[in-house]
């Protein structure tokens, strides 16, 4: 259908974005690959030369690496499950006719506007602190011993914080999808005697499949890189209980200032992320086809 001229015009319009993104990808990636093979510590300017794959083996064989990969996956999956499940429930709820719908929606989406460092600081200091956080006060009120969230369940606590930030995003996308569901279809199903659960399972959920895919895809991309919240709350501990891959790289880059090893870690993380993305697309990518 498209003519030759419109095809070349299209290519012309596409090229600035592609070229810029290509540069933005290639240049840092090339530098990172280069550094990853070299001895390069900011604090030791005189140590130079090639280190072959020494940085890679150092990063991958460090005792915290395996746990960090697992923790990263737990963090991503944990947040995804919470945001998708609660997102669907909340979307269903606020899609109903209720009083004060506008305000309810505003309140629900508000956490999305909060800067990640602010969110982490608020939760850590004012809620999860075991001596004067609100959770501890609530526990005391109920006659229970306060729970030391960040000490006893660090990863779960971080999942909670991150899920709180991303829940509005999931809810919004699921809500828009839900609103596009024709009410005739649902009413027809109701006429046929389908119960609420059946209607949800056989009509709504398939309809939401695409929206869920989008939520999973976009959130995964953002969640794989999360470390600021960990830095603010637990510093990756206690032990390495909440150390994720990006946090491990942070430690190499900004505590040891070992640029070589941090670069190797970055390359490893990109490879792992692409493996995750590959399986993700295999598993749910078909939902995205028009």
């Amino acid at each position, binding site marked *: 259908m498209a003519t030759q001229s419109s*095809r070349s*015009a*299209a290519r012309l*319009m*596409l090229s*600035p*974005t592609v070229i*810029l993104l290509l540069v*933005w990808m290639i240049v840092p*990636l090339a*530098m990172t690959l280069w*550094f990853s093979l070299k001895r390069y510590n900011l604090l030791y300017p005189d140590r130079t030369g090639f280190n072959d794959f020494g940085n890679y083996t150092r990063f991958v064989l460090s005792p915290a690496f395996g746990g960090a990969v697992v923790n990263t996956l737990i963090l991503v999956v944990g947040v995804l499950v919470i945001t998708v499940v609660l997102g669907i429930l*909340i979307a269903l709820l606020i899609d*109903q*006719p209720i*009083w*004060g719908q506008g305000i*309810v*929606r*505003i309140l*629900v*989406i*508000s956490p*999305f*506007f*909060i*800067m*990640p*460092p*602010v969110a982490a*600081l*608020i*939760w850590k200091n*004012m*809620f999860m602190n075991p001596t*004067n956080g609100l959770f501890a006060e609530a526990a005391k009120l109920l006659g229970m011993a306060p729970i030391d969230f960040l000490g006893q369940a660090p990863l779960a606590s971080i999942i909670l914080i991150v899920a*709180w930030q991303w829940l509005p995003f999931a809810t*919004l*996308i699921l809500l*828009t*999808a839900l*609103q596009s569901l024709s*009410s005739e279809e*649902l009413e027809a199903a109701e006429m046929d005697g389908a119960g609420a659960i059946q209607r949800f399972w056989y009509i709504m959920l398939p309809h939401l499949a695409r929206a869920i895919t*989008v939520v999973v*895809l*976009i959130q995964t*991309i*953002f969640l794989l*890189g999360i*470390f600021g919240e960990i830095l*603010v709350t637990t510093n990756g501990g206690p032990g390495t209980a909440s150390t994720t891959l*990006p946090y491990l790289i942070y430690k190499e880059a900004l505590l040891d200032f070992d640029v070589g090893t*941090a*670069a190797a870690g*970055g390359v490893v993380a*990109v490879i792992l*992320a692409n493996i995750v*993305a590959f399986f993700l*697309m295999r598993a749910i990518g078909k939902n995205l086809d028009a």
Partner: protein
Amino acid sequence: MARHISTQRRALNTASAWTVALILFFPILWTVLTSFKPEAQAVASPPIFLGFDWTLQNYVDVNEQRDYFRYFVNSIIIALGSTAFGLVLAVPAAWSMAFVPGRKTKDLLMWMLSTKMMPAVGVLVPIYLLFKTLGLLDTRFGMVLVLTLMNLPIIVWMLYTYFKEIPGEILEAARMDGASLRSEILYVLTPMAVPGIASTVLLNIILAWNEAFWTINLTVTDAAPLTKFIAGFSSPQGLFYAKLSAASTMAIAPILIMGWFSQKQLVRGLTFGAVK
């Protein structure tokens, strides 16, 4: 889904929706309340909800310590600048992907998304060196550039999904009338895509406003936005909850208020092609 339901049912739904909404909003509300407390009462046990000695002292202190306005202006410039720049790049790209799709269009889209997978902290030093060489450290232009590139994949994808919804026949009709490519985009497509573009703009502003790695590590003073402002309040010596809350409230208020006013736009537009 305008279905008729009983008043009882509606009351029940209302109650549960409000409960959920208030739980989700509570941390923000608590922060705002804490920002009006004297430091000693901010850590009082049991906590005081409203019956504390309301004060504006924390805001005064925060403003005395830092020039909030400067950080605020930088946040605005970086958020709006990267959004505008991003749109200029993304609209044509998304248009051509939507209306002149090639066999590789979907792969191209996925590739764009994959550029976001490199953990930022792993490439900090390379980027820092690059920025130093180009003289972009601590410049607003440098930050606009970084955040544009960070968010470009997302907004291309968003716009692509909106443009795809626009029926091709309209374009054909416009072309019959002899409209040039430029006017086709300007007068036919863009108006139809305005709701989509609006929510893309909103999302991009939110993401740019809240980006807290590059904005902290590549700025010093001239281009430092509100994320850097907050980094100075996170754990000073002494009691700090109330001042931290005041600083936080000041950092999130602009974007929160913008979000509230544009809530309808955002709800309508944030689909990423999730709706067929």
